[in-house]
């Protein structure tokens, strides 16, 4: 292999039309973190040398690149050329992680339903999300503890992710049950980029990104406006997003100020009964209840400072966030409003759930990593702290069908939820081919919940009918409110052992305990352990080497995770509710190979999830998930006015095996293909996107439960198959105008023509 093959030729221009992030990774100016120019990162070998004593500031700040792995399932993902594969959101980027499958059949702004390693993290509660270090999961959220909505991210600004599957790093916090997904926003493609996307279902999206020349890739600004009528009925949306960050450097000091703002209003079609669809009573993409939908806002600021010296790295970060949330969903039609003895006679009034929350979220994290050398091998230890407080005013009511008038309060809570954590993490290299990483984390979860409707759903002698929040019980008068408080510490040792590499092959073994904070809705007063304990182990091998001109990163592993008290979807509540303990185990294989112009990624995961009490399968968890992403980018043998034309293409293929459903059934498999092609000349780029290219008609979500949407002559009360349809084929055209110094050089000959 000649030197020219070992040192890939740097790519010179941004090519991606629809995903400017790819351009960023490939073409950016020479910040040190972006070299080598190959878009696919090679995970830091387990026994790789420690960072140089005077690590460049940029290298230290890139999360996901600079964090040593904690297991075979710890995957740093640079989006790179694979941004050519069509994706609808920042959440979609997670499909690059092994075993990850996302669906979202409940509306454009609804948090993605995430499936990972046998977990149905319905709205994210089993996966810890962070964005540039700021936590995303929302404790005490009325739609589910740990609700994680990542739609406030502009996907083109996501440079990389670190997906750590399993709780094996002491820095992982609350909700890291199936693992963590850490987004890093940066914009290596300097200059200004203005993009319009339009197409199917009257969809329009305008995006403007700005990364001033002369500033680091961590300084950027982006705004996005989008709207669509949506496919089928009642799936329209309008949204606006702004993401901006300033990053400054001075010697070994780096500081960042991040600001984000986001708002969306979207309609939701909800579920469809399969028998109604098969009988022709409703269409595949129809809705029963057009009043379903949501309004969400999020405003966030974060400040971070980092000091990198020869023997230490100090970090401190603080953030504050304001959020509002309202969601109306109806899974069961008119089924649950049965006549109660404390109600005046009534017919079914409808099961439309109205959830609302107003949240103030403040927090901080700080750490100090001390580095030394022992036996000529680098060793380090880190002390860290994390604190977060969420004040959440949450309610859930039932609304009368078609009128939106509330008739019943399910809960009304004033939540104060605090999480304070301390951790110790060490990296030890006792032998040249052995690395130990791990430590201990302790999380204190503290709750103070004022239940404003503590007495409801009971019959009190002498009480008037139709009183929701009673001021009496069987013992006589009482206040309608009740306060519940609780707290407890979760001790969580975590560690990983790496042996190797030999010819690129490293064996990795990980084990750890984790915790998921309790849902305040189910919190008892003075509950001793307000969290669900998690126990996880993992073993596997990772192969990282350059093979035949490709950077190859492959892994195979076995995992096993036990959850002490799980949360499973409950259609009557429209959210996940308490269930017994569960066990997941399975295996995965994944590989990514790339060079400067080709990028291929594939993974296959098997998961088996069972309940502790009866051994039954956990419903909704797909046993098999497979995903392929491929992208290519090449200059065409075509020049116009002396500038080369470059072309790129990307394809993504998803296959999900039939999922177990309640009542001993299996759902339908999912198979979709997404594709994109684009061409760029100088400042201009034109692309075409086809999502669900084969126009497969499939169900994103499949359920078995009882519902009554009035589609039969008489009430139906037994479980039936329901589904939320995935989108049909959607076609878009994308036009991008690139401005700035980098754009001015795009396609220009490196040498003047003779």
């Amino acid at each position, binding site marked *: 292999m000649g030197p020219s093959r070992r040192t890939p030729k740097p790519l010179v221009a941004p090519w991606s039309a629809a995903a400017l992030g790819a351009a960023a990774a490939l073409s950016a100016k020479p910040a040190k973190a972006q070299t080598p120019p190959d878009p696919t990162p090679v995970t830091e070998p387990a026994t790789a040398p420690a960072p140089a004593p005077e690590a460049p500031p940029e290298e230290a700040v890139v999360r996901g690149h600079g964090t040593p792995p904690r297991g075979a399932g710890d995957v740093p993902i640079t989006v790179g050329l694979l941004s050519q594969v069509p994706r609808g959101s920042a959440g979609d980027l997670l499909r690059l992680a092994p075993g990850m499958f996302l669906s979202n059949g409940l509306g454009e702004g609804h948090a993605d339903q995430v499936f990972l390693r046998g977990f149905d993290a319905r709205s994210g509660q089993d996966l810890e999300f962070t964005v540039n270090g700021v936590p995303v999961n929302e404790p005490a959220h009325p739609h589910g503890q740990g609700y994680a909505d990542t739609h406030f991210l502009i996907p083109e600004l996501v440079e990389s992710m670190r997906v750590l599957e399993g709780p094996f790093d002491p820095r992982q916090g609350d909700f890291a049950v199936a693992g963590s997904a850490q987004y890093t926003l940066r914009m290596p493609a300097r200059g200004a980029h203005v993009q319009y996307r339009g197409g199917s279902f009257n969809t329009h999206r305008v995006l403007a990104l700005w990364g001033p020349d002369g500033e680091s890739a961590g300084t950027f600004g982006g705004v996005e406006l989008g709207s669509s009528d949506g496919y089928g009925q009642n799936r329209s949306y309008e949204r606006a997003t702004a993401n901006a960050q300033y990053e400054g450097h001075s010697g070994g000091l780096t500081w960042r100020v991040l600001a984000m703002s986001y708002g969306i209003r979207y309609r939701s079609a909800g579920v469809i009964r399969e028998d109604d669809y098969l009988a022709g009573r409703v269409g595949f993409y129809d809705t029963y209840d057009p009043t379903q939908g949501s309004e969400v806002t999020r405003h966030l600021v974060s400040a971070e400072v980092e000091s990198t010296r020869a023997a230490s790295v100090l970090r401190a970060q603080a953030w504050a966030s304001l959020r509002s949330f309202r969601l109306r969903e109806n899974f069961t039609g008119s089924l649950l409003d*049965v*006549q*109660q*003895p*404390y109600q*005046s*006679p009534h*017919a079914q009034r409808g099961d439309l759930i109205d959830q609302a929350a107003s949240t103030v979220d403040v927090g901080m994290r700080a750490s100090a990593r001390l580095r030394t050398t022992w036996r000529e091998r680098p060793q380090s230890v880190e002390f860290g702290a994390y604190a977060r407080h969420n004040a959440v005013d949450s309610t859930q009511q039932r609304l009368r069908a078609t009128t939106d008038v509330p008739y019943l309060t399910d809960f009304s809570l004033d939540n104060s939820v605090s999480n304070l954590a301390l951790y110790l993490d060490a990296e030890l290299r006792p032998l040249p081919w052995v690395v130990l990483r791990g430590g201990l984390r302790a999380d204190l979860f503290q709750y103070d919940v004022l239940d404003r409707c503590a007495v409801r*759903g*009971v*019959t009190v002698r002498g009480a008037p009918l139709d009183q929701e929040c009673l001021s009496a019980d069987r013992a006589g008068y009482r206040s309608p409110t009740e306060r519940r408080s609780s707290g407890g510490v979760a001790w969580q040792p975590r560690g990983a052992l790496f042996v190797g590499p030999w010819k690129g092959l490293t064996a990795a073994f990980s084990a750890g305990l984790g915790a998921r904070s309790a849902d305040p809705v189910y919190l008892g007063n003075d509950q001793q352990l307000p969290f669900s304990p998690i126990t996880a182990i993992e073993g596997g091998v990772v192969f990282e080497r350059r093979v035949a001109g490709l950077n190859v990163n492959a892994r195979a592993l076995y995992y096993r995770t036990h959850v002490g008290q799980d949360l499973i979807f409950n259609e009557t509540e429209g959210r996940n509710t308490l269930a017994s303990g569960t066990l997941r185990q399975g295996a995965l294989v994944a590989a990514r190979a790339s060079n400067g112009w080709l990028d291929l990624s594939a993974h296959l995961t098997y998961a*088996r999830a*069972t309940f502790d009490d009866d*051994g*039954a*399968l*956990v*419903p909704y968890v797909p*046993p*098999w998930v497979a995903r392929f992403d491929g992208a290519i980018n090449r200059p065409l043998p075509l020049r116009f006015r002396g500038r080369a034309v470059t072309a790129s293409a990307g394809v993504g293929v998803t296959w999900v*095996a039939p999922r*177990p*459903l*309640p*009542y*001993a*059934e*299996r759902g339908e498999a999912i198979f979709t293909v997404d594709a994109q092609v684009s061409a760029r000349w100088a400042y201009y780029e034109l692309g075409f996107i086809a999502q669900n290219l084969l126009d497969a008609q499939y169900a994103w979500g499949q359920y*078995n439960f*009882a519902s009554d949407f009035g589609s*039969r*002559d*008489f*009430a*139906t*009360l*037994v*479980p*039936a198959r329901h589904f939320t349809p995935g989108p049909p084929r959607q076609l878009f055209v994308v036009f991008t105008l690139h401005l700035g110094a980098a754009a001015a050089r795009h396609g220009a000959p490196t040498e003047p023509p003779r």
Partner: protein
Amino acid sequence: MNRRSLALALLFAGCADTTGAQRVTFAVEAAGIERDAAQPLSFTTDQGWTVTLTEARVALGPLYLNTLAPLEGDRRHPLRRRVEDFLLPSAYADGESHLGAGRVVGEVTTQVEVDALSPALTPVAGGGDGVAEPSLTAEAWLFNRDGALGGAAVRVAGTAHRDDLDVAFEGALVIDQSLVAAGGSIDEARKVRGIPARLTLAQGGVLRVRVDPRGWFDGADFRELTAGTARDGRYRFSPQDNVGRAFLNRARTRAVFGVTFSPTR
């Protein structure tokens, strides 16, 4: 199937594991009681009237199978009941009565007109749905129906004989607001609850419902009808007379309906 394909099949089938009870569909058949169809249906009421029916039609449906226990009453000796209730009092949770909402494990959501004089089972279009879990009771609903029932839920005609008196009669059960108790719902007037149905549904089986009209006129004294005027030789009973009142109550009792299930057709 060779060993490898068997292993693959098991693997893809999730090792044949399950998430719980199975969802099932089943056929439904309805008819009157089993008897010799060549003979008229005659029976004697508790008032000594020998009644021979010439018409007995019921608009039956929907029908639900529930996990609720049947309303069998308390058959214990009063003294024993007092002692046992004193030693082991029943517990009632907040918001519950001794008959909670239960859980529906099977349903037939169509209406069918049953000729209660015909013992021949006729299939109910659409069949039924449910889950393979034990049920204890059935709940039948009676809705008014046009056609042969003429806007009634139950229609009946026949003759009643006692001593030397023959009374030809006809009448109907019409579910309307006149049957609704103060503060109640018309749905309560439609329901016939607590029909014994100790069965477990299975895929492909058949649910059989038989309507027994022999108790419809218990407590009725047909002599009162003769004080009125016969039309076409028949006296028509109504809720204002004792025959009509007895019929309104007796036609909506659980004893009228028999529900069985056969796992195979």
